[in-house]
């Protein structure tokens, strides 16, 4: 299935782009998607403190992704 991956801040710098279209296997979780897309680009420490969003909502790491979803990897926020 096809999903859109939004990349911000440190992830945009690490991957050198702000949006990717990726093809994921069925039953793939947002955490699996992270491993496929970011993988070794991020330290395990950064991965541990990263949250996930699907369609502009925070979701648990084990949430299953659906075709057409927009997913985002959210490093620690620092607005304000």
């Amino acid at each position, binding site marked *: 299935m096809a999903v859109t991956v*939004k990349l*911000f*801040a*440190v992830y*945009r*710098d*690490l991957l050198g782009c702000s949006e990717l279209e990726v093809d994921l296997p069925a039953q793939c979780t947002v955490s699996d998607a992270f491993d496929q897309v970011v993988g070794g*680009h*991020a*330290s395990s*420490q*950064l991965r541990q*403190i990263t949250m996930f*969003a699907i369609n*502009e*909502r*925070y979701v648990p790491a084990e949430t299953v992704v659906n075709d057409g979803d927009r997913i*985002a990897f*959210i*490093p*620690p*926020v*620092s*607005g*304000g």
Partner: protein
Amino acid sequence: MIDEPHIVIRPDPFTVAEIELMVADPANGAICSFSGLVRDHSHDRPVIALEYDAYIPMAEQIMREIAMDIGHEFSINRLAMVHRIGTMQIGELVVVVSAGAAHRAAAFQAAQAGIDRLKKTAPIWKKEHFADGSEWVGATREG
């Protein structure tokens, strides 16, 4: 709350006066406005500039939910939360949270809750630029 909160993330500069106009109301006896600015140091290290990135639709949605919650928790008339993105120099306004209320205690509480919760949950990120490099705050140095 009398009206929809005014929530925006935008690249262009703004002033406190401009944001306070958005919370104007004849029933306001008090407005409390918090301004976050680029300051010249971070943990004793001189800062040259700050750069902000945001997941705009998600951050605006979260800020709207924060504002609606605050509107239920405190006796306020109006609330505005405006955050800038892009690169900013020292002294420039990054964020303004402004609350208008009949009485001052609610205005202070609402503005403080607004900025506290925005900082905790809105998907917005700050990169600090120093003389010798730059770093996304909170992310381990990578690459």
